[in-house]
């Protein structure tokens, strides 16, 4: 053990000591810039994904543009980096920290206690504190409208729903969808299948095919990567002379299979970020979940422009008026509660276990 690399390590430490002596102490981010406030974003994946994370990053850039805010982004690798990231931003005096994913929620609660001056916004989170705000995208609002479209377009009266993992938020989306279908066509039969993963294309395709064989002529999904299987199955059925519609979810999927897609229930994440930042500047948030999409265009149903001529005008009008009713707060589509403090939420765990 004469091989102890003292000579290798010692200079590094000396260097470290020397430099830390002249290193500057922690500095508030606002002291370094003229910015009115500082905003940070944490993502668990790359912002080049053209989806969930890209939308968040787009939102961050829009906040920078609109208010001239100082912005920063960190992609975390594992849970071990959550606390570190919050600590870094909190110490540097960031005012608003977006943690884009429910995985951050426990660390965000800890950070909230530690940095009372900072507001932490957790996308899809379920835990609440004075300065820790879950940002909930009420996809139910869009999916209710999509359900109405499905109810209006079905000829057989059978509508299919293919979901990924059976968790409360996803169940809520289907609950609202089903309600939308029945609002237009009360006698409709609604099929429901959960494939157990978000990304299994083959399983999704198989589920959709089975729905079609049972008479469904409109199929909605709530999956991630597996959605390609849904569109594939619907297109194949249509090609085989069995007219069938697909409905996209989460983002505008109207151009994946334009000839058979009725429309998509979408979340506009960047709009939600701007909206909640505005609410934060007006000191309107804190102590409760923030539902984005209730009264704005964050969540919407976008009918497919390529097939607009095949959708009856009165159906579109009905959807439009319902959209107005939802945005004005006159109507709330049903949802499955999963956020603490939410009406109907049970501390011991509603629907524990999942599919």
């Amino acid at each position: 053990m004469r091989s102890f690399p003292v000579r290798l390590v010692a200079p590094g430490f000396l260097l470290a000591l020397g430099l830390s002596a002249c290193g500057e102490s922690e500095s508030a981010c606002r002291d370094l810039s003229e910015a009115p406030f500082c905003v940070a974003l944490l993502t668990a994946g790359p912002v080049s994904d053209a989806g969930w994370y890209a939308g968040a990053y787009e939102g961050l850039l829009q906040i920078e543009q609109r208010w001239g805010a100082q912005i920063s982004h960190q992609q975390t690798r594992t849970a071990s980096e959550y606390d570190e990231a919050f600590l870094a931003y909190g110490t540097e005096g960031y005012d608003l920290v977006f943690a884009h994913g429910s995985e951050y929620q426990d660390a965000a609660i800890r950070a909230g206690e530690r940095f009372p001056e900072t507001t932490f916004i957790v996308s899809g989170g379920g835990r609440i504190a004075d300065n820790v705000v879950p940002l909930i995208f009420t996809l139910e609002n869009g999916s209710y409208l999509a359900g109405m479209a499905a109810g209006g377009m079905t000829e057989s009266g059978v509508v299919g729903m293919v979901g990924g993992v059976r968790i409360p938020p996803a169940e809520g989306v289907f609950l609202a969808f089903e309600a939308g279908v029945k609002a237009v066509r009360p006698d409709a039969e609604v099929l429901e299948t959960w494939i157990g993963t978000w990304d299994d294309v083959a399983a999704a395709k198989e589920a959709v095919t089975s729905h079609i064989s049972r008479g469904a002529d409109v199929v909605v999904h709530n999956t991630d990567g597996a959605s390609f299987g849904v569109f594939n199955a619907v297109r194949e059925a249509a090609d085989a002379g069995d007219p069938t519609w697909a409905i996209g979810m989460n983002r505008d999927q109207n151009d994946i299979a334009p000839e058979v897609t009725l429309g998509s229930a979408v979340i506009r994440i960047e709009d939600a970020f701007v909206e909640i930042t505005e609410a934060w500047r007006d000191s309107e948030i804190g102590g409760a979940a923030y539902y984005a999409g209730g009264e704005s265009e964050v969540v919407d149903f976008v009918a497919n422009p390529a097939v607009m001529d095949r959708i009856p005008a009165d159906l579109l009008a009905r959807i439009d008026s319902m959209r107005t009713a939802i945005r004005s707060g006159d109507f709330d589509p049903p949802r499955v509660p999963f956020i603490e403090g939410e009406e109907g939420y049970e501390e011991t765990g509603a629907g524990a276990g999942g599919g």
Partner: protein
Amino acid sequence: MIRARWWGPFFAIGLALAVTSVALALGGYDVPQALGALWRGAFGSEQAIASFTLKRSVPLLLTGLAVALAFRAGIWNIGAEGQLYAGAVAGFTVGFVGGGLPAAVVIPAMLAASLVAGAAWAAFPTVMKLRGGTNEVITTLLLNFVAIHLTAWLIDGPLQEPQGVYNETAPLPESATLGTLWPGTDLHVGFALAVALAVVLWVVFRFTRVGFLIRAVGEGPEAARIAGRVDSGRLSAGVFLASGALAGLAGAVHVAGVDLALYPGLSQGWGYTAIAVALLARLNPLAVIATAIFFGAIQAGGTSMQRVAGVPLAWVNVIEAITVIGVLIAARGRSRSGGDAGAPEAA
């Protein structure tokens, strides 16, 4: 023979910095700002040193010791990653179930469970190696994937948080979490435990009979058996299991000290980085402390580059790798120079 000069390490660090600067400049980033962030994120403040660098070094240190122990005995345990997962799951489960008990009971129970689980995860490769002669590199490596996926399944299934919404477990009860070592920072007592274990392992290697025999079996298995009359099979089995136990401990310490709940993909590949940590330290437990902190610093500094200089994670990963390679080159220069290859101190 190349003689290592006193400036060798500075040269290596300088080289790494130069290459890193070029890489950053090519990527279009503000080089001074990024390098400043690299530094300050690792050592720039009390928080950076304790909450970032030292905290990050804990799993690297424990797995690094696990690898150093095994490699010393000539056992190529590539499975620290999987053993860490096994220890994390076992430690978490004990902590979660026994959360109502006082910390003085729960914490030792968690750590003990992780030791057992880590050793259990190494047991199959141990038996395969000693009975069937199956190469442990393959078995331990494959078991890593099993451990990672099994953990993901458990978190998605039996261990999922009670609401069944999120892909994580419920948080550990307060009594099952490790206390703070450095007040005002996130550095938990696991760091002290890891450093203490490093010292213990160093004493074992340097002064004890069993430590001597482990080194003998590693350096000259035939001579140990023939001249030393060492039962190398038994000794190897013990070392293999102990190595797994140490890596398992890393998992429980990490969960109880940092994550406070189980998440899928809980490790950043520490069990693999540990191999570099151990080799750079030339399998010397005391040196593993230094190399683990070095790797922790690089990761902390790299992460800081993201926040301050807007360097994306992909670039940060590249820069971390460049730095590590630079230091490995410097270390290699040293090992070629001394002519004392691995010769341990006796008296």
